[in-house]
């Protein structure tokens, strides 16, 4: 076993660790462990029988040729277990290593939780380590910047309020050219649905807003989006362990929905945002379930297709496979609905194995891709397990991967390119937009005639 270098070139780790003194670490961590180190922390760390059964669950372990340091319990052994034993009195080098492990070697996908006889939640433990590191200011620079953006603008990408509104208008204009009479209703109080997206949509993938608008228009959905902060449902602060910021973000999100008096929130195809809205952010705010009902895009598409509000004109011919994102499958059990949607849209569906709850992680989630270029090589070094799974689906015909999650998209695109898999990636929304019946086209054709 060669020692992996901790020289990352990541200033968020290098510089901030250089500032730390052992006394500072002991004091800060000692305080948090005392105030937040609860029953789960103790029970998880102390009940682990170190049986190693979690190892096979982890794509880091599998991709690193079964290197035991990358097994879930192996990551606990390198981070929180000694930290707890020493009550936080560890040296700066330890903190750097722990941060590296917790931020870049675990996608928090919780696959290992399903393989542990006790259900020890290693993802929860890694998130706790992240929180400890964050309190010491030791966070990879890129994701820290994202969390800063959340804190300042309440969106992930430093999108200014007018930029958001401009982008929505721009997409409305474009879409209205295709679909006469289409609007993207900002700030329509009393609509049935508030549609929320993650900031990378207006920033990089504005066509997704366009497509959603077309779908909702065709289905006659009564919907709106807020023009104020709260339009972004994403949450990287959840992944840096800055729960306080997470709370502020979710509060803004829910309050926007309440202000608009909508019946529910429909979210775009994002995994981590669902985790934040449906699972973690609401808890931090003291809500057992979200105060405004939340529907993920998969479920909403399913409703639109089931109810016939959207009809499929022509099914997709290319053989496709489906990647079950951790946060929507293992996180909300939407894998069967996703398959129903696939069945309605695609002629040739190829399962990848394993699938559903057991699917292998894309390698990008849990904020790992958000740690940016300094860690990209490491991330791809841990991608062979996923690549094998994709390659297997490809040999059985699949050419397109449907991944209903932004992070998964990013991660899988990198994997496909790195391993020369020659597959392309789509969102479910892309396919629906492509295959749906568009009544206005008929009108146009008729008029043209």
């Amino acid at each position: 076993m060669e020692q992996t270098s901790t020289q990352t070139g990541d200033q968020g780790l290098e510089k901030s660790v250089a500032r730390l003194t052992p006394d500072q670490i002991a004091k800060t961590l000692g305080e948090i462990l005392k105030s937040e180190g609860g029953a789960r922390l103790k029970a998880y760390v102390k009940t682990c029988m170190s049986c190693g059964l979690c190892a096979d669950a982890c794509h880091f372990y599998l991709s690193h040729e079964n290197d035991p340091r990358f097994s879930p319990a192996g990551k606990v052994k390198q981070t929180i277990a000694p930290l707890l034993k020493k009550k936080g009195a560890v040296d700066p080098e330890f903190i750097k290593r722990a941060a590296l492990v917790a931020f870049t070697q675990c996608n928090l996908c919780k696959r290992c939780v399903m393989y542990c006889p006790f259900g020890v939640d290693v993802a929860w433990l890694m998130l706790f380590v992240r929180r400890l590191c964050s309190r010491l200011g030791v966070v990879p620079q890129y994701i820290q910047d994202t969390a800063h953006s959340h804190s300042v603008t309440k969106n992930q990408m430093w999108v200014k309020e007018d930029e958001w509104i401009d982008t929505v208008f721009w997409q409305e204009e474009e879409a209205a050219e295709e679909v006469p009479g289409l609007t993207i209703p900002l700030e329509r109080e009393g609509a049935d649905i508030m549609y929320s997206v993650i900031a990378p949509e207006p920033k990089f993938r504005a066509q997704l807003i366009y497509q959603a608008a077309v779908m909702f228009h065709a289905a006659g959905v009564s919907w709106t989006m807020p023009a104020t902060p709260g339009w972004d449902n994403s949450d990287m602060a959840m992944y840096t362990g800055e729960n306080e910021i997470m709370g502020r973000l979710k509060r803004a999100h829910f309050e926007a929905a309440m202000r608009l008096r909508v019946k529910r929130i429909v979210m775009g195809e994002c995994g981590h945002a669902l985790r934040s809205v449906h699972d973690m952010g609401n808890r931090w705010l003291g809500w057992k379930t979200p105060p405004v009902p939340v529907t993920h895009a998969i479920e909403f598409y399913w409703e639109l297709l089931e109810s016939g509000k959207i009809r499929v004109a022509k099914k997709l011919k290319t053989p496709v496979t489906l990647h079950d994102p951790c946060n929507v499958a293992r996180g909300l059990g939407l894998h069967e609905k996703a398959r129903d949607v696939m069945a309605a849209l695609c002629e040739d569906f190829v399962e990848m194995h394993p699938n559903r709850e057991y699917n292998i992680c894309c390698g990008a989630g849990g904020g790992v891709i958000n740690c940016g270029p300094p860690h990209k090589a490491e991330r791809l070094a841990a991608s062979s397990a996923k690549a094998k799974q994709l390659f297997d689906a490809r040999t059985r015909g699949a050419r397109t991967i449907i991944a209903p999650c932004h992070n998964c998209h990013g991660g899988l695109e990198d994997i496909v390119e790195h391993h020369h898999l020659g597959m392309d990636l789509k969102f479910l929304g892309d396919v629906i937009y492509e295959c749906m019946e568009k009544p206005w086209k008929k009108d146009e054709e008729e008029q043209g005639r």
Partner: protein
Amino acid sequence: MTKAYVFAAGPLLWVSVIVFAAGCLLRLGRLAWLARKKDRPVYAYMSAHYALRSIGRWLVPMGTESMRKHPVTTVVSFAFHAAVVLVPLFLFAHVLLFYEAFGISWWTLPEEAAYAGTLVVLAGLVYFFARRLIRPEVRYLSGPADFALLVLVALPFATGLWAFHHGPGVRVVMLLHVLSGEALLAAIPFTKLSHMFLFPFLRGYMGSEFGSVRHARDW
């Protein structure tokens, strides 16, 4: 020797039983209190239905993906855990001693079954020991305490087997049998052996999280 045995099987046995029972209760109580203070979701999401669903699943051999991936370990583990609990509790000699002391008795294992169970326990421990040494992912996680724990569990069973066969030094071995059994009992609340009574709570909580929040399987 007689005096030492009488002391070990008398007052010392009481001590170990009290340490075991009080230790388990204290640890459970402390965790329950800590959870109330710092882990509110534990109480908020705990659901009897999903907890039992998960516990039940994980008590069925080969009932989970993890078990099916490791069939040998699963078989050994189930046999070991069944034997390690059943043999001491339902061994005729143990029940007889209890009957002579308190006039209460219960069903006992046939001698052949108890004998086989003891061998299963010891073979299981050898397997776990070997697994810790040989499998790199387990070896990496194993510290001296993990190996010591296996030895601690082995002692009362090995000495019991020895005494059953009237091996040499049976008097010393019987004393060791009683003492190591008591040490094992008293160690349960304070070592990783506490998984014995924490299992239903950990499993139940994760089952509840997966069932009622995540709507997904946790097996």
